[in-house]
């Protein structure tokens, strides 16, 4: 294929703005897939993704239309995967900016639009869902036109559902997205923009060839990891896998790498030819995946540590962003401290562990990575248990993010209040339209991890959207709050919070635990403490009566069975010092900020 007739593009859209429906329609229109073969939302492969209506794994599909080869590259739609998005964008020359004609721009779209524009992509703006009664195409077109600094008439109007305007959109992509450049004769350089693990074929990467040609059975080298292998099978998805003789400069496709571990073929890496024919300079932009959020994962009662370890090892094969190390908790036993890209990633991993590996897990409250600064060193802490004692360090720094929130005007006050209460620092507020505001805040990531998204949704009746990106570290007055049962600290309940919030957190935890800890033979003090200073306290009064009042001839068998049942229940309890704590109490107590993960 003549490089001039290739177009590589992606669709940037908010969740539910119809990206997948549009992709389906494009497949249909270009006869890549017949209508009745169309699986709902063809590009989203995993069940989990389909259920959540999101795309985790980027993929590329080749369409042909009018003598053009059109590579549609799918992008993940979540803030956790910003880096993956940036790599997908790097594989494209253009992006369709797709906006719901009823709902307008959302924070996610805006963030990805900025990424696309910064990557130098041609932007093809389009309004979707113009068939909806609630659609306001004129208002939304103006909003988009203002953002892009173009004429409102240049905004395409589409209904992916009915097919209206889709053909025009395809033509606009061909006309407005530039053909890829690249030198066919230069040494091979191909960008890995996605990498997945297939149980039968091993690691499959999605690649954009920038220079040279990728041919079957070539010896290749991954420049960042240094791993070499044989290019087993280059191909394209049309939309089913179709092996090709070569992927040339400007082309997009897949490569069966012959590798068995996705960590050897990371997103952002550059593939070149092994040996002296190879390129010397990798493509720019490679970054190691960096966990942002940590949580302790422990097997639930009777659960097996080695099963959890095996499951994580297996999961890691297909999830290059997953990292973990063994952790021992006095209260929860052996488990792992697991690093995630974000809350959604954490939720997905937990759900996959439970669903695909049939494990029952206890997860400790998620926390971020703190930097503890001492005279001559910086201690990195991503487990509250590792937090040094107050007084032994100079200061603590916490990660902050640059957050973008888009909200209808009437909820602006509530959004500002929420951000202020979360230690936010207002950068600016712009009105996208007279009705919708865009707010920028610098917010501590720890605050976002703590049920921020739920609060945002509930305070704006679901209308606000949020996006953020890392914005470095800043000093913060953080303290570790410990929870003690009968004088014994429960490591699973320790957390690092801002000093101003320590009391509220401590109070909430001790009150919750008072409800969850069964009465014992002695008064159980439940305390929240910063160092040796107790900030909240509750007491579970000693149990005074636990006896069967009547036990005569006809009662004995039944009472014995009752005791046996109680005995089993007691055996399932975890001991914290002298205190028996039911497993459920841990799960329920750690559910404090459960809402934060739902997205």
């Amino acid at each position, binding site marked *: 294929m003549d490089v001039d007739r290739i177009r590589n593009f992606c669709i940037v859209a908010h969740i539910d703005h119809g990206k997948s429906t549009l992709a389906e329609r494009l497949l249909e229109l270009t006869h890549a897939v017949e209508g009745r073969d169309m699986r709902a939302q063809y590009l989203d492969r995993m069940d989990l993704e389909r259920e959540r209506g999101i795309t985790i794994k980027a993929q590329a599909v080749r369409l042909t239309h009018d003598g053009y080869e059109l590579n549609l590259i799918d992008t993940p739609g979540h803030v956790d995967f910003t880096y993956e998005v940036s790599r997908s964008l790097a594989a494209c020359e253009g992006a369709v900016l797709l906006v719901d004609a009823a709902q307008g721009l959302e924070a996610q779209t805006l963030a990805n639009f900025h990424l696309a524009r910064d990557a130098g992509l041609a932007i093809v703006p389009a309004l979707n869902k113009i068939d909806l009664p609630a659609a306001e195409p004129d208002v939304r077109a103006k909003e988009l036109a203002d953002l892009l600094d173009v004429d409102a008439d240049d905004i395409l109007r589409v209904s992916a559902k009915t097919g209206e305007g889709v053909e025009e959109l395809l033509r606009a992509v061909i006309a407005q997205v530039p053909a890829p450049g690249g030198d066919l004769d230069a040494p091979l350089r191909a960008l890995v923009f996605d990498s997945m693990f297939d149980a039968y074929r091993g690691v499959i990467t999605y690649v954009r060839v920038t220079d040279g040609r990728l041919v079957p059975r070539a010896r290749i080298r991954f420049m960042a990891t240094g791993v070499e292998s044989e290019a087993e099978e280059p191909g394209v998805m049309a939309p089913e896998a179709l092996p090709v003789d070569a992927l040339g400069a400007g082309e997009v496709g897949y490569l069966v790498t012959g590798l068995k571990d996705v960590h050897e073929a990371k997103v952002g890496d550059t593939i070149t030819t092994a040996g002296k024919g190879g390129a010397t300079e990798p493509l720019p932009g490679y970054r190691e995946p960096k966990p942002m959020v940590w949580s302790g994962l422990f097997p639930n009662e009777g659960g097996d540590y080695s099963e959890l370890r095996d499951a994580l090892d297996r999961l890691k094969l297909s999830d290059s962003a997953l990292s973990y190390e063994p952790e021992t908790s006095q209260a929860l036993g052996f488990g792992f401290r697991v690093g995630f890209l974000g809350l959604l990633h954490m939720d997905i991993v937990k759900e996959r562990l439970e669903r695909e590996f049939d494990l029952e897990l206890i997860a400790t409250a998620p926390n971020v990575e703190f930097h503890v600064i001492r005279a001559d060193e910086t201690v990195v802490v991503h487990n509250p248990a590792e937090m040094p004692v107050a007084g032994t360090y100079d200061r603590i720094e916490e990660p902050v993010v640059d957050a973008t929130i888009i909200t209808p005007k009437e909820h602006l006050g509530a959004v500002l209040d929420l951000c202020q209460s979360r230690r936010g620092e207002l950068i600016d507020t712009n009105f996208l339209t007279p009705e919708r505001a865009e707010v920028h805040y610098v917010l501590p990531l720890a605050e976002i991890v703590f049920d921020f998204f739920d609060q945002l949704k509930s305070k704006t009746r679901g209308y606000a959207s949020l996006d953020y990106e890392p914005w470095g570290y800043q000093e913060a007055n953080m303290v570790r709050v410990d929870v003690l049962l009968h004088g014994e600290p429960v490591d699973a309940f320790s957390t690092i919070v801002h000093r101003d919030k320590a009391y509220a957190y401590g109070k909430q935890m001790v009150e919750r635990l008072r409800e969850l800890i069964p009465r014992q033979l002695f008064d159980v003090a439940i305390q929240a403490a910063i160092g040796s200073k107790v900030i909240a306290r509750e007491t579970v009064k000693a149990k*005074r*009566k*636990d*006896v*069967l009042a009547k036990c005569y001839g006809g009662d004995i068998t039944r009472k014995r069975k009752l005791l046996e049942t109680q005995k089993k229940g007691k055996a399932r309890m975890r001991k914290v010092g002298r205190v028996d704590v039911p497993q459920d109490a841990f799960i329920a107590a750690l559910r404090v900020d459960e809402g934060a993960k739902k997205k």
Partner: protein
Amino acid sequence: MTGAEPAGVYVHVPFCLTRCGYCDFNAYAGLDHLASRYVAALLREAELAAPTWEGVEVVSVFLGGGTPTTLEVADLKALLARLRQEFSVAPDAEVTIEANPDTVDEAKLARLLEAGYRRLSMGAQSFDRSVLAALERIHQPESVRKAFDAARRAGFDNVNLDLIYGAAGEAVESWERTLGEAIALAPAHVSAYALTIEPATPLGRQVARGAVPAPDPDLQAEMFEMACGMLGEAGYGHYEVSNWAKPGYECRHNLGYWERRPYVALGAGAHGYRDGRRWWNVRPPEEYLASVERGELPVGGFEELEPADAYLEEVFLRLRILQGIPSSWVDDGREEPYVESGLLVRDDGQLVPTERGMLLLNELVLGLTA
């Protein structure tokens, strides 16, 4: 079979005038028309059951229910005569019959005594009108006093009063009055039970749906301690979790359950026990009748106790009574925290629960046997 452990005979009479809301016994109101058939069946069952108990001395007979005194005295007399005929009932055997205050008068009581029922267990429950109402008992406090006086006049010196504490709305003061009234009557024996909510009762269902509050265990603990104090002061020995007696008046029959001595089961739903085997008769009176009338033992089920079951039973039953368990039954050191916290005392190689320990007996059992 000389040297065999002495046994008790339990006879169950499943008839009541009314059902009380808290009661989960095998008892029925409105089946009085079955009474004479039922007595005949008991006589027959005694014959059927007796051969396997040959040579075993019977030291106690207990007629429970239900309300045994709903039966005719002539029938009750015939029943006891049959038991003496079929079993080796010791001449001085303890023979107890349960009675409701409203089902007895002096004449009837005198005839019962004459028939050989020498111990009377009376379901007083409370001397507080509102507590009796909460328990759905049909009698009034005056009936208890009247029935008790009648028993005295009829010649009973061994009378037990059953009391229940901790019903909804009962305050400590009410329980104090009830205890005081009971002590004033000077019965030989007092059973005081914390009200227990059984799910499969009308009261249990009311509690489940929140119509009636569940008993407050702390309040019941306070009432238990009050009973220990007042009854102790009045000269009653606390010999089992819920039982107090003047010296020498401990219930020999019930001690048999806790000491795991054998007992014969007669009547619908009655449980029997002997040598690690427990069995129970079918519960519905009609089924019981049909079975016995066919000339079959009406056994509905049985269990053979595994050593672990037997051990658990032995521990939780013996800890209920003052004699406690031998220290050697408990793995080294398990008892230590309980001795330290005053729930158990060591007494001549035995581990005996204190009164506080009795209130936490389930914990003790679980802790000692875990």
